[in-house]
């Protein structure tokens, strides 16, 4: 049996017990019925492969439906039952995602079919139409059946004469034996059903969520494979991070050495010479001092550029939103920026996102032949999202050399960030970055 995390139990109100739990029960019954349709569809498309080959066209569609349904069930289990279920699918290889044509589709299908979780999903769809529906039926019907007991107890003469069933559990309402009217006997039973339903309803919904986790959660083997993938990924991104860091330090060292340092040496020399000359040749000394002043201005300019490359001042002052606005102002293109961010994000993520956007804008200006670009920044569910959309000629990809996109992907990879590029030939290009990060209101303090 797979493990699952149970979320914090919320305070359950009477309303939730009497109304919401049964409604969810009904919804889950509907879900189970849909599953019955679904597994039949999958089965049909599998059987059609041998007979006519149409199955090959149908199977990707039905499998996509199956996966969508399974994912919806995982979300419902979390939302209603408080049971968190990880998606245990094998990740799709990036070259598969971009493969086109018949062969590409076939390879994608094979990859999906060879993922054991696909068949666990299938087994779940079959069993859920029985097990899930059974559990859900109790949640759905107990309270209602209890209420029905009261209705039948009062209105049985009308109802039975209209041809309705005159049994309520073991009470035969119209044949009352010694007592002429045993209708009231349904009251305590109905009340018991309502109370029982109110107690059991939310628990049954949670039970249903646990049932979902049995087949839709990861097997120990899948969990281990996921961990192995994670370790491999971390090793790779760590190596990238170390390389990037080292390259950055080398660049800074070189810039300082060839720039500000050299200028300071020249200034010192000029001032020394001026000192020696000032009594005998005041004019020459003046010229040297003017030169020294110029060198100091140049050194300042170079240091300013260097600082901008390390940690841009606006980013330090105002955070990512305004820093990106400042970038947009400096861009040769018409750049619109929308920002929906908390005050400050983690400093490291802010910096990574800033340089990613900077690189994206440079890319657009260099390669896209665009006139307009839109940057949207927002933060939701613990993730920072950045989209950059331009009206250029498209055709960008992480594979194409010199586009810089691969570099961005590598650098945000250190933060478990991911990048998606949608850029059909002819445009437009949309690049989306997603980086997990918490918000923090701490301000960077540098003087």
């Amino acid at each position, binding site marked *: 049996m797979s493990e699952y995390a149970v979320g914090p139990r919320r305070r359950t109100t009477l309303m939730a017990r009497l109304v919401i739990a049964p409604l969810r029960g009904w919804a889950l019954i509907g879900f189970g019925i849909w599953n019955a349709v679904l597994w039949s569809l999958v089965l049909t498309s599998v059987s059609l492969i041998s007979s006519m080959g149409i199955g090959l066209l149908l199977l990707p569609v039905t499998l996509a439906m199956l996966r969508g349904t399974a994912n919806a069930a995982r979300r419902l289990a979390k939302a209603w039952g408080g049971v968190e279920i990880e998606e245990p699918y094998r990740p799709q290889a990036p070259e598969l995602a971009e493969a086109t044509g018949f062969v590409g589709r076939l390879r994608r299908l094979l990859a999906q079919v060879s993922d054991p979780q696909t068949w666990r999903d299938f087994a779940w769809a079959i069993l859920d139409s029985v097990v899930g529906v059974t559990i859900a039926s109790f949640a759905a019907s107990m309270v209602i059946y209890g209420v029905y007991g009261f209705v039948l107890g009062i209105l049985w003469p009308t109802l039975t004469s209209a041809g309705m069933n005159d049994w309520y559990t073991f009470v035969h309402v119209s044949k009352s034996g010694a007592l002429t009217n045993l209708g009231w006997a349904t009251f305590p039973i109905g009340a018991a059903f309502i109370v029982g339903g109110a107690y059991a309803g939310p628990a049954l919904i949670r039970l249903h969520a646990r049932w979902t986790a049995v087949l839709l959660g990861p097997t120990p083997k899948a969990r281990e494979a996921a961990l192995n993938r994670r370790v491999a990924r971390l090793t790779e991104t760590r190596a990238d991070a170390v390389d990037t860091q080292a390259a950055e330090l080398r660049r800074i060292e070189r810039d300082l050495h060839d720039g500000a340092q050299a200028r300071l040496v020249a200034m010192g020399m000029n001032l020394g010479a001026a000192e020696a000359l000032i009594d005998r040749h005041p004019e020459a000394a003046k010229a040297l001092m003017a030169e020294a*002043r110029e060198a100091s*201005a140049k050194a*300042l300019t170079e240091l300013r550029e260097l600082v901008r490359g390390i940690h841009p001042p606006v980013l330090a*002052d*105002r955070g990512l939103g305004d820093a990106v606005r400042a970038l947009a102002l*400096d861009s040769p293109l*018409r750049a619109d920026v929308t920002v929906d961010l908390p005050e400050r994000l983690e400093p490291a993520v802010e910096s990574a996102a800033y340089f990613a956007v900077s690189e994206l804008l440079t890319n657009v200006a260099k390669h896209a032949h665009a006139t307009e670009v839109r940057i949207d920044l927002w933060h939701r569910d613990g993730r920072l999202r950045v989209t950059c959309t331009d009206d250029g000629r498209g055709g960008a990809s992480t594979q194409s050399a010199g586009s810089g996109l691969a570099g961005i992907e590598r650098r945000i990879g250190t933060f478990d960030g991911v990048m998606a590029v949608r850029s059909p030939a002819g445009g437009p290009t949309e690049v989306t970055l997603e980086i997990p990060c918490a918000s923090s209101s701490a301000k960077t303090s540098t*003087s």
Partner: protein
Amino acid sequence: MRVVLGEDLYLLREGLARLLTAHGLEVVAAVGDGPALLDAMIEHKPDVAVVDVRMPPTFTDEGLRAALDARSRIPGLPVLVLSQYVEQLYARELLADGAGGIGYLLKDRVFDAAQFVDAVRRVAAGGTAMDPEVIAKLLAHGSAREPLGTLTPRELEVLGLMAEGRSNAAIAATLVVTERAVAKHTSNIFAKLDLPPSDDDNRRVLAVLAYLNR
């Protein structure tokens, strides 16, 4: 002329105070952090405030915020902002109220004392003094964006010099043309940017704002 000075580095603060005093300006207060600066500006209502952007306590844009805050309480209070770097974003924020009396210069500009003091006086008189680096960045990107797209290259050049705070006479000298030619350019610029007729100084500020807002 009374000046309030806000700069957290002691050496620079003293140096600036000495420089301004030497040029006949009176430094009524020299403070080293944001809140003290805001208080000094409100208390002294100086003819001009010379303000560093990054100051304690947060070491972010404390000085800029203090300047904007003071101007919201004392409209048009002349402020010259000094910084290690210039950002169009901050230039726009400073000019946004359209009241003029704004300077935004790199700290290096202090090296040329005469020009710097000239900028201080210009700002005190309600003019603008944008750093040439802000202007250079704008010009580097051409002017594809509206409404500046309608300006001729020459008019853009004139507008850039206007943003730096030069008078028509100074612009004429820089571009080696007659002052009348410059006046013609400026009135063309005002017309193209659709600026309502008002006193020339105010229109110059609005034109610069339009320039930065492109």
